[in-house]
């Protein structure tokens, strides 16, 4: 069947959906991704600024009760309203940014260094070690991060440090997977073979040649994992198993507002929006970075590493 050629839109049918092949298509795709990077980066920078400036931006003490002002709707005095203890929700959200970003930063740092370390050794040396390591990693990847984190929290008990430990443990295997995959390809490249042929020690080859060439995918993974870490941390806090009250965390504020959802929806509503904006910023940045750094995936921007 042939469609009649529509006057005025002759190109439409000729180029339906294939990869952006022409220069213009590629540039468009790239521009869009840079927009993702730009928007995501800006959002993230704003959230970081809020967290750093928390003492200045918070209009009230985030944990001071003021029962006279309980459950006030948003107003000039209380930007995000107040909760059932009369605490200022805006101030709690602002200080909560610190907790979330802190946890995300440390978790991702620890998981990336630890996981990538395991992955690079496993991929570079291969053999039986690789086989055993990857079986364990596959097994851990089969379980949801939240379940792993809950199991660790159940044993260790609730505290900021334990949240970090639990989430970092849950995130280690994904970094090991990504790092191993990249290492396997980098290992076969000429410059690595040359370094080995020149008599470089394993340590030197790894540190000077292999690891620096594996950074891009790990960086993308770090960004996306930071988003996930914030989601898992706030889930734990929401369940009452994370950082303990009265510390202001986003998950805890949502949980506090749950009982007053009908009459004071701003408590859960606005604190959840803070999580969403932050996580969206990180996800956008991750998507954009993935496409900028990995030309083979450009424009696909998908779940290869998730």
């Amino acid at each position, binding site marked *: *069947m*042939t*469609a009649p050629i529509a006057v005025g839109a002759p190109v439409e*049918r000729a180029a*339906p*959906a*294939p*990869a*952006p092949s022409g220069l213009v*298509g590629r540039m*468009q*795709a790239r521009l*869009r991704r840079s927009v993702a990077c730009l928007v995501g980066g800006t959002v993230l920078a704003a959230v970081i600024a809020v967290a750093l400036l928390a003492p200045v931006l918070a209009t009230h003490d985030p944990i001071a009760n003021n029962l006279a002002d309980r459950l006030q709707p948003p107003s000039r005095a209380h930007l995000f309203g107040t909760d059932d203890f009369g605490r200022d929700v805006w101030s709690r959200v602002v200080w909560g940014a610190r907790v979330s970003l802190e946890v995300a930063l440390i978790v991702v740092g620890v998981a990336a260094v630890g996981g990538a370390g395991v992955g690079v050794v496993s991929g570079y040396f291969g053999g039986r070690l690789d086989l055993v390591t990857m*079986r*364990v990693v*596959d*097994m*851990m990847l*089969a*379980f*949801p*991060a*939240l*379940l792993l984190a*809950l*199991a*660790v*929290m*159940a*044993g*260790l*008990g609730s505290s900021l440090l334990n949240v970090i430990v639990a989430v970092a443990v849950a995130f280690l295997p994904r970094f090991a997977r990504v790092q191993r995959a990249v290492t396997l390809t980098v290992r076969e490249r000429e410059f690595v073979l040359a370094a080995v042929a020149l008599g470089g020690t394993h340590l030197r080859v790894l540190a000077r040649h292999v690891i620096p060439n594996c950074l891009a995918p790990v960086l993308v993974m770090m960004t996306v994992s930071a988003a996930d870490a914030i*989601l898992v941390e*706030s*889930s734990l806090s*929401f*369940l*009452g*198993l994370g950082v303990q009250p009265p510390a202001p965390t986003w*998950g805890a504020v*949502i949980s506090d*507002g*749950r009982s007053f*959802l*009908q009459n004071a929806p701003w408590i*859960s*509503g606005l604190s*959840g929006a803070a*999580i*969403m904006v932050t*996580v*969206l910023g990180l*996800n*956008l940045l991750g*998507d954009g970075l993935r496409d900028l750094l990995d030309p083979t995936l450009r*424009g*696909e*921007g*998908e*779940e290869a590493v998730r």
Partner: protein
Amino acid sequence: MKRFLLQRLSFLALSVFGAFTIAFLVMRLIPGDPAQVMLGDYATKESIARLRETLGLERPVWMQYVSFVGRALQGDFGQSLVTQRPAFYEVFSVFAPTMQLAAAGALVSMLLGIPAGILAAARRNRPLDYVTTTLALSGMSMPVFWLGLLLLFLFSFTLGWTPTIGAGAEGGWLSTLHHLLLPALALGLSLGAMVTRMTRSAMLEVIRQDYIRTARAKGLTELLIIAKHALRNAALPILTIIGINFGIQLGGTILVETVFARPGMGSLLISSIYQRDYPQVQALVVVFATSIVLVNVAVDVLYAAFDPRVRA
């Protein structure tokens, strides 16, 4: 195929074993004396000694591990400290509502995500694609418990269409369904975002293939190309990804059950952690993990049955 099956089965065995190990570690991670922690500050010396005896805490760690795995393989996780009934039995009393929720959530996510993903792929780099992918990314960035609360606020409190909590009256399937609606929607929307992205990339992968170019060259309509040639080839990867996401799905039920105060494995897990009912936590961790791995392996095997290329 035989080799592939063997490989998947060994993965299954290893993962179940891993689940046992994680469950065992839960108890070992407890700082101090687990018996003391479980019984609380007011426990007598005798009752602590008795529990230590029951849990076998006096023996070396490796012996505890071996006996734990041995008993767990028979479904014996000891008694729940709260109900005094076998912990494994307690899990199965709440197994059904959780699986209903997970299945309903999966259904919603597929109904939503697959068409959206196909549409986005077919209209790649056009406004519709941007809108869909942006929405999907936003959905993925929402905490599922917050989404649940938003739905609760809108549909239960403001519109009064759906009940707020629980899983419905015993035996009434209509009531069960009514209570399932909102939780399934929360879970399904959240997962649908991910399914959309994955469907889109699976479709884009297929659209690049030569047989699609052939179909185009034959002058088939775009609709026919997408529906008959692309979708049929992308279907398997899409379904596989959904199966593999079953794990994430079950992680989500823990949160959704808490938001909607639904009985289930997730809410039991949380209350057991609160009550320091460790045998119950261990049994739940094992059942959760085993269900996830079983589904994953089943999906893998099905995939191989349909696609000979995987078996190599």
